[in-house]
């Protein structure tokens, strides 16, 4: 069990209706279906991932967030909307966050921290765009077009009236570490945010 999934599943209650944006090969939804009796859908555009989801019995819809949006989903129809490691790959993360909290009472977002010390160090020393385990691409072919830091994300949430219910900061292997807890924006590689609208409990 991937540690980030372990953390996320604690926030999903039995029978929750869940939407997973960029669900990949369906590992998380498959787990939530079996362990939490959750229902719901994954959205994905990678053909191989879509096939894998179908083979697993994960309901997957081929739908591109950037070009097709989420208009086909009704307000408040999900308990939780998930987006793991995909926020940095969409054209308008701010609008996706709005949509997530239109469709669900709660959102769970994970993304890599562009302010991690190794990335800062790499850029400072080499003067080249940093690469890491979480961000293994070249600047010209990376799908990660909207990289941000934990601080950036939290500023956006404040600006939008989004409340952060909890935040877990982990390293590249999704492990907890005392150092990442101490200086998250410097030492944390990946954050798992649990968000909701200000007026939601």
């Amino acid at each position, binding site marked *: 069990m991937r540690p980030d999934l372990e953390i996320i599943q604690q926030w999903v209650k039995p029978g929750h209706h869940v939407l997973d944006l960029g669900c990949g090969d369906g590992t998380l939804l498959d787990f939530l279906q079996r362990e939490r009796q959750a229902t719901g859908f994954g959205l994905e555009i990678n*053909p191989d991932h879509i*096939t894998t989801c*179908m*083979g697993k*019995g*994960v309901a997957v*819809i081929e*739908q591109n967030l950037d070009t097709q949006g989420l208009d*086909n989903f009704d307000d408040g129809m999900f308990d939780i909307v998930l987006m793991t490691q995909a926020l940095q790959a969409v054209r308008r993360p701010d609008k996706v966050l709005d949509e997530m909290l239109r469709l669900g009472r709660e959102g769970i977002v994970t993304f890599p921290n562009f302010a991690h010390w190794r990335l800062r160090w790499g850029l400072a020393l080499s003067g080249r765009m940093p690469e890491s385990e979480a961000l293994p691409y070249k600047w010209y072919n990376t799908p990660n077009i909207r990289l941000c830091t934990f601080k950036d994300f939290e500023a956006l949430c404040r600006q939008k009236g989004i409340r952060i219910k909890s935040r877990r900061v982990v390293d590249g292997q999704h492990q907890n570490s005392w150092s990442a807890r101490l200086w998250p924006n410097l030492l944390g590689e990946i954050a798992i945010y649990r968000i909701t609208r200000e007026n939601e409990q």
Partner: protein
Amino acid sequence: MPDSLPADSVGIVTPQSYHFDTPIELACGQKLGNYDLVVETYGELNADASNAVLICHALSGHHHAAGYHSMEDRKPGWWDSCIGPGKPIDTNRFFVVSLNNLGGCHGSTGPNSENPATGKPYGPEFPVITVSDWVQSQAVLADRLGIQCWAAVVGGSLGGMQALQWSLDYPDRLRHSVVIASTPRLTAQNIAFNEVARQAITSDREFHGGRYYDFDTVPRRGLMLARMVGHITYLSDASMGEKFGRELREEAYKFGYDAEFQVESYLRYQGERFSESFDANTYLLMTRALDYFDPAYEHDGDLSRAIAAAQCEFLVLSFSTDWRFTPQRSEEMVNAMISARKKVSYAEIDAPWGHDAFLIPTPRYTDIFTAYMDRVAREVGA
């Protein structure tokens, strides 16, 4: 045909006819007192009858979906690419049932069958059949075969409409509904094409108000035209372009009106072959069944309310260049299923062949279909 049968073929198959004498009540208000359905089956029904898959055919389809009738056959059944050992609908695991629908012209009771009341072919007296009527007759067939619940009901185009209708009319009698290259209702353009086809048939002098059997003739030209116009809607501009382009049959223009372009002679050939083997009244009936299909109609046009009755899981597939039933029509269906909180998976397959793509085994289509059906098989222990 083949000197030896391919290893992934269901082999030589023999259709079987079932007679039913409990009257069936049709949507039009009429009853059909007794009728026959011609059926082919592939694979073995397991002990708890949980591995049965129903194949629903499209406009010009029939019961012969896979395998060969004899070693002399030039071609296998119409969906041989997807049904057989190791194929997406794996006959080593599933018991596959494929029938000729009521109103058809390949052995099941239809306009060219004898009307017991008159001793002559039904002709125009044969009632108009709807998709719901077909589903009802298929349920009667399932009873006869000892199948309480289908592992899956599968169909492309008009067949997909039947797969969808099954989920609404008999929600507890199927686990999965696989709806391929289909639509929740015809558009005005779709109906318009059907109307051109029907006009071609009914305006043929040999049609005789549908009683051509009595005159020992068939409205061949009308049927040929109907098929030609239909055939155009099954292909894409690109696939026609690639196949024929502007290629001429001879080197230069002849400044006349014979078939000079390859595409003309192809369409004429297709139309002629079809007119030799298909019944004109059945063509009228099938196109009307298409026109009438609209499960949302009884729910003020709200498809998600219509779909609320369904209990099965859905797989919906569309093809990028299908302009007859576009991917948008499939997405309409998927969105209604999402709104109704049904479990649905959807993919749009990139394929250049237009509507016909559902009959052609492109790699991604085959992969998805195989993965989904494999999971259905595991679910029912097949």
